[in-house]
């Protein structure tokens, strides 16, 4: 039997429908691979028995000719997405033993479409981070290594476990969430595709909130086509989320392979600061050349408020987080450390339950919302957010998409950077603007650095232009012929 874990869903589905392999074969191989890649620490909790049972059910459906759009699709779910009966921790001690009695809408839709959940993946605690280092369960490990070096590298974050398992072939696809780059950045560092949809395209119901006005779930896959297939099933209006858009989700696969001839690609000068990693700059230029080769027109554009985006993000996101995380108080569920009084119980529970990064952001968020600071910080950040959004609106009057690097550098070693939170925050510099503006963006692997580490480029589109992003991403995918692990 060929190595089924290396196949895309498109290729796999043909084999499944022609009955040359079974879903049970597929899931069995993935379960084996999960065991082999245990050192990656990609999963917080594995649900392999349940997955095998569901595989049998999927095979019955295929036998009876009632296969659903994602029948037998092995899926990993970021551990901040609730799944009924499956432990959901947000990689935090405070939810270490939390088993939700409900399923996030995006997961439910994928399950209803036939996807099989293999397990829950590791993340930075409450998705606060860009490395998975802040996870209570320890960091995940990037399946890629520097050539000739055995040192463990971080997979990026916060959807580090999701990216690591997809890149490491221990899941076909994964759900991530992206608040400031948490899908795209780890996808780029792990050499996989990561799509952050338009804010409101995918329901947030059942997803443990970090920053409600920025959080958006999306797929992490090895191919652009798989991302388009997964997104199509998970997207769409949900009456249980007031911020969910009423929108008819198109068949994204139709955009794949469509010509981009005559379309305009914007290159924002603010994303090419002095001192940008030369290799990343070179791969950006190469990607621009692919665009030209495909007949697209390249335009230099400016997004003048880009430099204010990161500070604004680090006010808005912690502000919302400080309030969103108030519910973890030891009263109804999760960790409770008994105290002599109610305040004592809160203090002890939250001191023990939250890690340093989460505490840092709660403190920042509480500060910027406090009386006398609200106007100077929170409201000012909201005005910046509007300016950042306006920049994009202006740009899209001239161009169809914007092309920029996803990250400023390649994956770093476990243990680097951790001492300086500000250096870590700079990981988000190319990604946060998109979240502030609520726009869709997709990161695609374009090649390897000289050290042999993946580099990703992102396309940022106007709201609800996911189709266009898949169209451009598939052009790059064709041109790059990026070889992932096991390819």
């Amino acid at each position: 039997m060929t190595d089924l874990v290396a196949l895309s869903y498109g290729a796999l589905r043909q084999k499944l429908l022609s009955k040359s392999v079974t879903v049970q074969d597929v899931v069995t191989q993935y379960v084996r691979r999960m065991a082999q890649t245990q050192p990656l620490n990609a999963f917080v909790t594995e649900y392999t028995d349940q997955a095998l049972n569901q595989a049998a059910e999927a095979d019955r459906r295929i036998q009876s000719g009632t296969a659903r759009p994602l029948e037998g699709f092995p899926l990993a779910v970021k551990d901040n997405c609730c799944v009924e009966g499956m432990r959901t921790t947000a990689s935090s001690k405070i939810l270490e033993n939390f088993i939700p009695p409900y399923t996030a809408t995006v997961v439910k839709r994928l399950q209803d479409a036939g996807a099989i959940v293999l397990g829950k993946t590791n993340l930075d605690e409450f998705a606060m981070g860009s490395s998975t280092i802040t996870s209570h369960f320890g960091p995940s490990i990037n399946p890629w290594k520097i050539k000739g070096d055995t040192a463990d590298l971080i997979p990026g974050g916060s959807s580090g476990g999701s990216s690591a398992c997809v890149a490491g072939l221990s899941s076909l696809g994964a759900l991530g969430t992206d608040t400031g780059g948490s899908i795209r950045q780890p996808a780029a560092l792990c050499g996989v595709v990561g799509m952050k949809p338009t804010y409101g395209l995918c329901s947030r119901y059942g997803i443990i909130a970090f920053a409600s006005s920025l959080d958006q779930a999306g797929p992490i896959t090895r191919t652009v086509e798989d991302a388009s297939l997964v997104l199509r099933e998970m997207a769409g209006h949900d009456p249980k989320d007031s911020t969910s858009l009423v929108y008819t989700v198109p068949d994204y696969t139709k955009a794949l392979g469509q010509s981009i001839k005559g379309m305009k690609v914007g290159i924002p000068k603010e994303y090419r600061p002095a001192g940008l990693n030369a290799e990343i700059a070179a791969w950006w230029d190469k990607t621009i050349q692919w665009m030209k080769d495909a007949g697209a027109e390249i335009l230099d554009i400016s997004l003048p408020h880009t430099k204010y985006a990161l500070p604004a993000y680090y006010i808005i996101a912690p502000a919302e987080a400080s309030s969103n995380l108030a519910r973890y108080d030891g009263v109804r569920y999760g960790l409770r450390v008994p105290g002599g009084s109610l305040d004592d119980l809160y203090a002890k529970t939250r001191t023990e339950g939250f890690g340093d990064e989460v505490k840092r952001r709660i403190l920042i968020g509480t500060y910027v919302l406090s009386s006398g600071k609200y106007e100077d910080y929170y409201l000012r950040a909201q005005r910046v957010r509007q300016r950042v959004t306006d920049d994009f609106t202006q740009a899209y009057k001239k161009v169809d998409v914007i092309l920029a690097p996803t990250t400023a550098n390649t994956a770093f070693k476990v243990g680097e950077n951790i001492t300086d939170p500000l250096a870590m925050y700079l990981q988000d510099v190319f990604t946060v603007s998109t979240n502030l503006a609520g726009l869709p963006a997709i990161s695609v692997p374009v090649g390897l650095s000289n050290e042999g580490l993946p580099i990703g480029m992102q396309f940022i589109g106007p709201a609800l232009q996911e189709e266009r992003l898949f169209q451009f991403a598939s052009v790059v995918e064709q041109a790059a012929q990026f070889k992932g692990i096991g390819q």
Partner: protein
Amino acid sequence: MINTLITTATGDWEVIIGLEVHTQVKSKTKLFSGAATSFAAEPNTKVSLVDAAMPGMLPVLNEVCLEQAVKTGLALNAQINLYSVFDRKNYFYADLPQGYQISQFYHPIVGEGYLDIDLADETTKRVRIERIHLEQDAGKSIHDVHPDKSLIDLNRCGTALMEIVTKPDMRSADEAMDFVKKLRLILRYLGSSDANMDEGSLRADVNVSVHRPGTPFGTRAEIKNVNSIRFIGQAIDYEVNRQITLLESGGAIDQETRLFDASTVTTRSMRSKEDAPDYRYFPDPDLLPVMLTQDYVNEIKGGLPELPGQKRARFMKDYGLSLYDATVLVSDMETPLYYEAVVTHLAKKDGAKMASNWVSGELFALLKEHNLSIVDSPIGPQQLAGLLNLIGEGQISGRTAKDVLEDMWQSGKEASVIVSEKGLVQMSDAGELEGIIDKVLGDNPQMVEQYRSGKDKLFGFFVGQVMKVTGGKANPQMTNDILKKKL
């Protein structure tokens, strides 16, 4: 103008009162969750995942509550804000699962309006409304059931409240109580709240200060959570006394929050202004701003029921009632319905004034005696009209009618049946009455002599004698007329 100044040995004091009335919005379900609203249900049986603030749960606005707030605003002659926003009020408490209350701080749904209250001298006084906003109620902490644990009941958690805030326009406890009474009546007429203080669905925070007339307002104390109209009056009286005594003895008023203790009829300090929590209000990112159209508001306006003030004016105009009588009739929901049903069944429309006297006089007395509300009256409006028609036709006297009413109450029989069974029909035959009167006068020649020589008071004696002979059935008007003629 009623003098509301308080005069002590040192001079006059003016009392300034403002109210924040919290009233439960009438709705089958809570403000942001599908859970049923409840009173006296088993603890923690009316709690949804949203109410319990489970991870990943999101609020969805209940539009019925919105409509109720708009109705209330319109009834209070207030500005309806077409743009309003829900904010989070952040604080920790065991019965506040989210760690924040969703409220409207910066942009409430209803702006400025007013309510005119009636003063004892039949003038009115305008109390301005500052704003009305919607917010969630918290759950209930129960400290007195378990020796060393507090119990939490989340049934009430998430129930919709309206907070109706007045300007500091009231000048006495009476005015404040009258305001709440009138507000409560309007809420009930609207059906926007049951405004039932016993069930805790109406509570008020009372702001009280005193100052010398013609000088700036004094420092105010806020008395929290006063839950009956009587207590509002008592709390104000106590507080006014406390403040005046303190000021006259050279002390100063602290701006503070106080609690009213109903058992001792006193207020005591809860926290000072310095200890006031910083609620860190910010717009709830889980909810979109509420955008209403003027058409929507107009439609609600067109569907408003007749309000107490309008009904009273109509009763005065259509039925010739006095301000006092009409006020008594419209002071609850059911009496005006009953009254108008009586009027409908009157043979002569000029009996409406008499009907008002009978409803608020004899019938109310019976209801009070038997501790019944008017909807449970064994004498229905049609039956009462039957009795009044007998009076109107001269068949029975008012005095007899009172006995018949008692009989109707006991036996449930129609008035006409009782009158004919007991032979109570009034003697209205002029010839017959003349014969009886002649006999009475003939039997009392000395009295006749005295009367004719100027002792007018004896007229009553002759009426009494006629009634005695006829067993009270003589038509009183005819008796008077004939007696006068013959004497």
